């Protein structure tokens, strides 16, 4: 019966993971997975022939208190490092379970079991130390930039080889010593593996470590002969791997690149003049749009250069189908000739009723959920309003910075006609989508179908 209830828990994990990967169902998915976990724990407690309830109760109480406190207190911006820390604890737990078995048996396992003990020890401890290095980097305790180690990747290769040899020894010898040695060496790999990776790449690393902690749990399952651990761990291990690859893709980096290049120290393709920008992907923009109730497009010269007018019209139509109100705010000098935007939007058959000029647009922005700026720059530059030293101070602008979210589509941070920088790009509520205007809008359109 226990096994079948564990199976139910496993099904809850599967369903939960599936739901977690869609925006509409994600919250429910999390709850389903949590329910599965609750079931698995309760089943274990009920079935258990307990020697001491005290330890269990104390452990759970302490752990729950710490976990809840951290989860509920930490600021939204610190989420990634928190996940890293939690993950580290997970790895530690798996390693501890294996250590416990090792301690209990003194190392006399059957070969195949010995292999799983080694694996859960090693993977668990790598996860543990690696996660806390990642945590430190993100939290600023350790420097975020990549740290060059003596020997570079050769060091890691050597450490990994040593661990493997120790593991093999452990598997055949039936002694405890090689297990302990493997544990020790592996705990170093967590440091030497993660320290050389830059802070910007940490999310990918954490995701990979997360996948590893799943494997560790699964191995621990083999060690203590428990299918719940095997299944749950394997699920997370595999799903985490897919997620890691997708995260790398979204950053345009392969996994190998992240792990072994050591260049991810915030090495963003675009020069941000030292100031940070929020780089968005088409999917981010699609989600922002899909959850808005009204959207204003602000076209500029870049729309004309990219010939993105048809794509924009298609996107607007897709939004209207979702009952999102759309409009176009046209600045008097957008483009390079009077009426430049009108020519293009008329060609794309945008109805005249959706076009608003400067006077009509500006009062709207405070009520606007998302403003999508496509290849406009000078005409949305807040320094024309705020900065008396700016050469364009006094020019009326479209005050898009008053909207809830601003998405700017352009190819880089380079300036427009007036040749001046635009503070809008560095606002916290601004997302920058760096791409050719037409391609960007087309990818957003493709992505919005999946939201």
């Amino acid at each position, binding site marked *: 019966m226990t096994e079948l209830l564990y199976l139910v828990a496993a099904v809850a994990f599967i369903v939960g993971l599936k739901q977690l990967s869609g925006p509409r169902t994600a919250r429910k998915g999390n709850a389903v997975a949590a329910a599965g976990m609750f079931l698995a724990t309760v089943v274990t407690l009920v079935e258990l022939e307990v020697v001491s309830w005290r330890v269990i109760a104390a452990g759970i109480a302490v752990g729950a208190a710490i976990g809840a406190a951290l989860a509920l207190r930490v600021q939204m911006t610190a989420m990634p490092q928190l996940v890293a820390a939690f993950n580290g604890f997970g790895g530690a737990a798996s390693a501890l379970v294996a250590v416990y078995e090792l301690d209990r048996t003194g190392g006399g396992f059957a070969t195949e079991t010995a292999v799983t003990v080694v694996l859960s020890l090693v993977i668990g401890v790598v996860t543990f130390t690696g996660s806390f290095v990642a945590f430190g980097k993100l939290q600023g305790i350790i420097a975020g930039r990549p740290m060059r180690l003596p020997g570079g990747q050769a060091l890691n290769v050597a450490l990994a080889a040593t661990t493997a040899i120790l593991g093999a020894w452990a598997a055949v010898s039936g002694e405890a010593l090689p297990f302990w040695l493997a544990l020790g060496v592996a705990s170093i790999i967590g440091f030497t593996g993660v320290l050389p990776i830059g802070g910007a790449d940490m999310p990918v690393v954490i995701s990979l470590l997360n996948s590893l902690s799943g494997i560790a749990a699964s191995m621990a399952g083999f060690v203590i002969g428990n299918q719940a651990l095997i299944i749950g761990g394997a699920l997370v291990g595999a799903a985490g791997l897919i997620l890691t690859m997708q995260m790398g893709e979204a950053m345009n980096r392969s996994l190998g690149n992240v792990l072994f290049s050591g260049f991810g120290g915030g090495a963003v393709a675009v020069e941000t003049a030292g100031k940070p920008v929020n780089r968005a992907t088409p999917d981010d923009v699609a989600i922002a749009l899909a959850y808005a109730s009204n959207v204003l497009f602000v076209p500029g010269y870049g729309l004309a250069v990219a010939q993105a007018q048809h794509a924009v019209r298609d996107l607007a139509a897709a939004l209207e189908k979702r009952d999102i109100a759309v409009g176009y705010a*046209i600045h008097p000098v957008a483009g390079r000739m009077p009426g430049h935007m009108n020519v293009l939007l008329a060609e794309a058959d945008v109805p005249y009723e959706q076009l608003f000029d400067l006077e009509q647009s500006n009062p709207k922005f405070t009520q606007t959920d998302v403003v999508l700026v496509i290849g406009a720059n000078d005409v949305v530059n807040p320094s024309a309003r705020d900065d008396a030293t700016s050469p364009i101070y006094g020019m009326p602008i479209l005050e898009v910075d008053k909207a809830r979210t601003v998405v700017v589509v352009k190819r880089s941070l380079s300036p427009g006609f007036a040749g001046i920088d635009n503070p809008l790009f560095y606002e916290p509520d601004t997302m920058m989508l760096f791409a050719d205007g037409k391609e960007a809008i087309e990818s957003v359109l493709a992505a919005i179908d999946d939201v």
Partner: protein
Amino acid sequence: MQVGVPHQHTDTERRTPVVPDTVATMTEWGWNVVVSPGIGEPSGIPDQHFRDAGATVGEEAWRADLVLVVRPPSPHQLSELAPGTIVAGFLDPFVDVDTIGGLCVARLTGVALEAIPRTTLAQAMDALSSQANIAGYAAVILGSMESPRLFPMMVTAAGTIPPARVLVLGVGVAGLQAIATAKRLGASVYAYDVRPETKEQVESLGARFVDAVTVAADAGGYAVEVDESAQAAQHAALTEHVAAADLIVTTAQIPGRPAPLLVTAEMVSTMRPGSVIIDLAAATGGNVAGSRPDETVAVGGVRLLGPTNLASQYARDASRMLARNMIAMLERGRTDDHFVIDPEDEILGEATVVLDGEVLHPRSRELLEANRTANSEAAS
């Protein structure tokens, strides 16, 4: 066979019924083509091009077995032709009694492009369509020249210019092209026609249809006349759209009947000064009160233009299309190196309004008889 293309240009007529391409085809058929000198000049075709295509350039264009014309020859010109000569082209056979009479008197054969049936099959010869198409385009270009308004919307540093508003009344071939052209220029276009199927056609060009009285067309696809109460309803529905328009292009026609009055003098008076009306139906009485053929009439600040042959303005392309229509028609009657008319032919038979001095087309016959009655009444 001898084919003649005489010079017929006037102030409002600049087309030719042949272009070098079609001359070359006729030459290939073994026909001898004579064109009057300078005939291609408004179309930008030098005489040499006709020569290169095999034609003779000379004054004897009227002395031929087949004379191709772009407008009805004068009765005098007809009277000088040898009996049996075939005159083909625009002959205005349902309105111009002199031409029909002249053809009969001189025992000529008249093949009228206007009488080609408007069937799917005859479309390649349908010169009314090809020329109406150009006229629709021309009307909007002319209107945009005459108007003090820019057509496209422009949001600029010097203020926002709203799009001009264009109203097209009568959505046949010319009306549709007028809509398309005004839309291209960025105007906000409204249109109305009495035939219900035109609503879809108007919308297929991205313009808006004005919902007013509609009446199903006759079997030939032509509009029928509406009664007085329906006309009043039309006027009522159109009033606000007329008042709001910067340019109105009217093209409504009913075959064999005077053009329907769609814009009354009162409606014109509600228009903004500077507005322009182009009445393409001016020749058959006009769709707009006060319009006069080939004249510009100012009513208050509104200008009414009644051009009757706008297609001819675009002489090169109008001639090219007309010549293509003509050669398609000639090909249908060609046997070896001759042009033979089979009165039973569903297309050529219809188009041959007069055969060797005998009036074949019922509507031309009606016209002649009505005229005779009127004359004899006048005489008595």
